[in-house]
């Protein structure tokens, strides 16, 4: 996905005609590393990946989840609302509304079972 810069939009990017949209609604792209652990890693068949998340407002964990759910199959099943999935941003426990930024590490994992 190609980042749409503010300058490109102002100077007539066909996807974002400045005559039609305020600056605040110009999509931005946030690139994060997503990590999957334990049972989730196996269920999704993925250890980690880079993800470019396009949003109109300030991006949060919820935007990552929405994008992943959009893949369907195991992704929508495992990350469905109500599933016991924990998330961490930069290795700190986080929530759906936790903001994300470029270069952040977003990890999804099941409830912990150590000790």
């Amino acid at each position, binding site marked *: 996905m190609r980042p749409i810069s503010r300058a490109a939009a102002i100077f007539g990017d066909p996807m974002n005609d400045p005559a039609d949209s305020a600056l605040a609604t110009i999509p931005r792209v946030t690139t994060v590393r997503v*990590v999957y652990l*334990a049972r989730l890693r196996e269920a999704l068949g993925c250890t980690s990946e880079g993800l470019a998340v396009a949003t109109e407002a300030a991006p949060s964990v919820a935007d990552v989840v929405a994008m992943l759910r959009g893949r369907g199959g195991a992704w929508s099943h495992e990350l469905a609302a109500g599933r016991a999935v924990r998330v961490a941003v930069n290795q700190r426990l986080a929530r759906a509304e936790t903001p994300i930024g470029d270069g952040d590490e977003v990890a999804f*994992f099941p*409830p*912990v079972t150590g*000790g």
Partner: protein
Amino acid sequence: MTVRVQLADFDAGAEIARLRSGDRGVGAVASFVGTVRAENDAAQVDAMVLEHYPGMTEAVLDDLVASAKTRFDIRDALVIHRVGALAPGDQIVLVAVTSAHRDSAFDACRYLMDFLKTQAPFWKKERTPAGEHWVEARASDEAAAGRW
């Protein structure tokens, strides 16, 4: 204050001796050792693999130990948690706390274990005669952490 995540087994006696050595103010040591049971949820456990989230695990445990130090009148604390392949009878975790008097050591030791169980990113996968499966989190562990 020491936190270690390691593949190797540990010697609880030696670790406790090191923890309290040189501190003449210690009058109490409380410790907890968690081990692998040969049976879980009525199924025979032949082996276990412990996975963790490197980096976050150590950060969570460091924060937990720091909060125990703030919350309880303790002298020092140690958490060692193993990862990798384990067998029934193997040691998994050691928590040890030193203090002047026993109440703080008992309380802090239990506090550390209760939060380790619900906060630290470790996951157990058991191998039983029916195959491999990830251990499910227990509501009773959440309740135990909730009492603090």
